[in-house]
């Protein structure tokens, strides 16, 4: 099977955008890669970890994004080329370090990959990481197709090293997760030797200490680097123009939106009327190039996802050079031609362009959409987003919300980030009442846990996953302990970073390279902080619920580890602990005493309601055989048997 690490220049492969980025980094001579898993970024470090056996490369899944950036920076300080990858809000986590790193500069080429999630397909935010590049004054690159994703990544290392600054490469879900043909270049030869030269003079960027102080001097240097980047970007092959020399409408675009523009122009048959200026170097903008293209058009539309980053930066150039290029009519997000949230697609872009150009344009996919809706209505199960069959989180939230209802003091759960964020929804019995950043569940709970002094008598519970625990919960836990907050923390330990594909974390016994690694034990760690820790199996519903009720009566910080591995974990996958069936004679169905409890309230997708028979059924195709529903059924009509 061909591998990403094959040294086969000229080969053409079908690669996912994230793999193309990884390949570009390998071709640039990457030696250290780090990251924290997060959709849509995870495949970058995942594919590098697979390549690590074949090329001289160290890869790690760090405890969090900030640490991953620091690990990559250390390699750069030692002269190696390094990369860190994360999703958009990972940049928020790392941003404090990033601000200072931009000030100190780097040595070996260092690329920070941020994969944004327009439309929040796998996020609880629609954050824009591009502003960080401008905020901390570092160059920003945005690939517009798959070959470019590879080539631009490779070049980003050159650029970084040439300027002495970290470079941010920003992708989006449709760039990271879609696939295209990528032509390989060769891999480099000998790896560099790591040496951190730090004995030199304070201000010596090659031999001195790596610091962001003295601030005035360093900040000026940093801004000089950005000025040089701007000059280099004027001639960058990643900024392209296609269309007539004097287009009726100029589309200024970047990233995946460039693909939508091309498709929209083709759908409208408007190639002779619309020019597409695709910018790959979105910060700092190549002023000369932008001015030249603006000068040739009267109407300008900005096509980009989420916030008007490109739009506003281009408008500054237009305002500053209005005397030379004339006054333009702008279309984009600020005046509402395109939305400031959600994903774009070719239809949306075509509709926007058609409106400006006066081309009649209906919904080309209306018929298809109708057919799809009809098919979905007839054939797809009627349910919202839910936990997988056999998911231990369903059992955990079942018993947590039961315990809180029984406790009867209007207690609530502060949520955190992971699969279990879904507990906001009916599949998790709407248990979560706050949901923000990683680690925020415990932080918020720590705050709630001090409000007893002002009359709050509601018990406070927080949940976090095992990976999240190491990521950012620990400081909040320490805070709660030190300040004697009244909080019950349930750690939903499903033995891996399950949501993003079972990447190892500091609690795992292996690392990203597949080597045995010392695992940092959650219980031992919590006990060492002086809190009581109980470990329970969420599949032992009744006992664990009683334990939760007992813990709810106590004050201070209490830790409850709910341990049961993910139904999709390599250890469990395709193995059923039980064969489950419904005893029709015992099933009460819709009558008083049940009211379709299993399918209406418990809602595991492995349970079906047979309307005609008025009985519950097990969907044997998807049932994972955990057997939890057999405890839920008030009649004992759901029977589990060891196969």
């Amino acid at each position, binding site marked *: 099977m061909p591998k990403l690490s094959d040294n086969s220049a000229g080969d053409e492969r079908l690669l996912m955008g994230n793999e193309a980025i990884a390949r570009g980094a390998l071709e640039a001579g990457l030696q250290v890669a780090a990251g924290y898993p997060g959709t849509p970024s995870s495949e970058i470090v995942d594919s590098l970890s697979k390549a690590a056996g074949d090329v001289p490369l160290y890869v790690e899944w760090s405890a969090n994004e900030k640490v991953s950036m620091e690990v990559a920076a250390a390699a750069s300080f030692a002269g190696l080329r390094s990369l860190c990858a994360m999703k958009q809000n990972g940049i928020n986590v790392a941003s404090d370090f990033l601000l200072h790193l931009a000030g100190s500069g780097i040595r070996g080429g260092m690329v920070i990959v941020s994969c944004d999630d327009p439309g929040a397909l796998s996020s609880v935010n629609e954050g824009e990481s591009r502003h960080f590049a401008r905020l901390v004054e570092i160059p920003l690159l945005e690939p517009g197709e798959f070959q470019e994703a590879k080539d631009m990544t490779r070049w980003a290392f050159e650029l970084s090293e040439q300027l002495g600054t970290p470079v941010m490469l920003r992708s989006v879900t449709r760039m990271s997760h879609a696939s295209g043909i990528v032509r390989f270049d060769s891999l480099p030869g000998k790896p560099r030797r790591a040496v951190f030269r730090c004995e030199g003079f304070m201000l010596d960027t090659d031999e001195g200490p790596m610091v962001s102080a003295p601030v005035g001097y360093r900040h000026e240097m940093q801004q000089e680097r950005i000025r040089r980047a701007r000059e280099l970007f004027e001639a960058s092959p990643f900024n392209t123009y296609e269309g007539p020399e004097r287009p009726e409408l100029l589309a200024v675009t970047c990233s995946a939106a460039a693909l939508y523009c091309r498709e929209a122009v083709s759908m409208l048959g408007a190639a002779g009327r619309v020019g597409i200026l695709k910018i790959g170097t979105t910060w700092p903008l190549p002023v000369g190039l932008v001015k030249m293209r603006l000068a040739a058009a009267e109407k300008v539309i900005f096509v980009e996802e989420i916030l008007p980053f490109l739009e506003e930066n281009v408008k500054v150039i237009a305002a500053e050079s209005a005397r030379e290029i004339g006054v333009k009519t702008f279309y984009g997000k600020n005046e509402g031609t395109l939305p400031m949230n959600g994903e774009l697609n070719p239809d949306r872009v075509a509709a926007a362009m058609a409106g400006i150009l006066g081309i009649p344009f209906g919904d080309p996919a209306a018929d298809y959409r109708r057919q799809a809706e009809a098919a979905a209505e007839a054939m797809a199960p009627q349910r*919202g*987003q839910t936990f997988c069959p056999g998911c231990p989180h369903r059992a955990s939230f079942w018993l947590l919300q*039961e315990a809180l209802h029984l406790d009867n003091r209007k207690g609530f759960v502060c949520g955190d980030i992971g699969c279990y964020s879904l507990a906001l929804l009916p599949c998790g019995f709407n248990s979560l009442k706050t949901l923000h950043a990683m680690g925020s569940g415990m932080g918020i709970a720590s705050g709630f846990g001090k409000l007893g002094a002002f009359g709050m008598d509601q018990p406070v519970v927080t949940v976090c996953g095992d990976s999240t625990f190491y990521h950012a919960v620990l400081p909040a836990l320490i805070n709660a302990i030190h300040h004697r907050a009244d909080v019950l923390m349930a750690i939903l330990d499903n033995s891996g970073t399950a949501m993003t594909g079972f990447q190892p974390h500091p609690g795992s016994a292996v690392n990203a390279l597949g080597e045995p690694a010392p695992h940092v034990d959650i219980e031992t760690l919590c006990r060492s902080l002086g809190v009581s820790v109980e470990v329970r199996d969420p599949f032992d519903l009744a006992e664990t619920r009683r334990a939760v009720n007992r813990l709810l009566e106590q004050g201070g910080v209490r830790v409850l580890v709910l341990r049961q591995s993910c139904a999709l974990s390599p250890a469990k996958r395709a193995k059923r602990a039980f064969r489950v069936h419904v005893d029709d004679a015992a099933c009460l169905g819709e009558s*008083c005493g049940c*009211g379709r409890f299993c399918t209406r*309230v418990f809602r595991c997708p492995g349970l079906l309601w047979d309307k005609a028979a008025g009985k519950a059924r097990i969907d044997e195709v998807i049932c994972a055989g955990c057997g939890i529903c057999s405890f839920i059924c008030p009649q004992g009509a759901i029977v589990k048997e060891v196969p």
Partner: protein
Amino acid sequence: MKLSEKNAVVYGLNTVVIRKKPLEEPARGAGQRELNEEVLDAGLCTGCGACVGLCPYQAIHGDATVALHRCDIRTGRCWAFCPRTKVDPAALRSIAALGADWTAELGPVRGLYLCRARDGANRGAAQHGGTVTALVRLALQEGMIAAAVLTGPGERLLPRPLTVTDPGKVPETGKSRFVASPVLAEFNRAAREGAGPIGLVATPCQALSVAKRKLSGRNLGDAAVDRLGLMVGLFCGWALSWRGLSGLLSGKLNLEAVSAMDVPPSKYRRLEVTAQGAPLHIPIDEVLPIVRRSCLSCDDMTAEYADLSVGSARLPEGWDEARHWNQMIVRTPRGEALVELARRREVLEFREVPEGNLERLKSASLRKKQAAREAEAKRS
């Protein structure tokens, strides 16, 4: 537009669908939703346990009934059996078929007695005269009932309902605990397991629930009440909230060591709690704030729907003598038969009811009925 369940659906962390037509408010029924609104949310739940154990939606924790999950059945046993939902009193009386003995103040009265267990040991383990302990024990011994649902001690002053089949175990349950015990949840469990005939020692609200069950149970597919062989009622002024009581006492004595509690006649204005040594006297003004809200709206002091009802006695000699006796209202032929048996077997001893005791009991009961009307008027 403010979005609610009526006009929007959330399908996932990122999918909101606005309904083309807002959902209409479902018509009112007589199920869990109405039970929640009329009883639980209104603070009127008595903690009797009648709605618990019939389905997975209602549960008891501590001394409180909670709605664990949302049921969407329009007509439910939970609402029908709850002692605090509306019911036609005339219909209730008609199923009791006791119209002839009915009194406005005390319900059916076939006789008022002053009595106590003849066996002194029985009395010591029980409250006051030990009449209930003696009668339940007798009913088990004589096979009138095969099991008795009673209340024993639990942790931190929380009473624990239990089913007793061994007559020798009855005295272990013979104390007043002043916190609601969900004996009807235990009755539901025992009936489901096929026990019977079952004897029940019930507070007035619990007795009322059983009467409602006789009235409507069969229409709702519930025949458990047919397993009931005897219901001994308890006089009751109020119960205390469990969290309130454990909070009130926890600084004052070791909760696990509490062996007896009593409220002497109202002129003493105190709750007596015995742990080790002499009883601790808690002023009644500290106790009244932790009375269950639902008890204030209760208009039955003497368990009018039981076969017979037992409470504390009043004697001309004063409380020191009266505290060793009980006052008993016999209401039904079944109650009468048991008392007759007790007399024949010399399980109970009797003394003459002092003149005026019936009138005093009636006026005390009327005061409670009046207070309940006022509390309900204030609430609505």
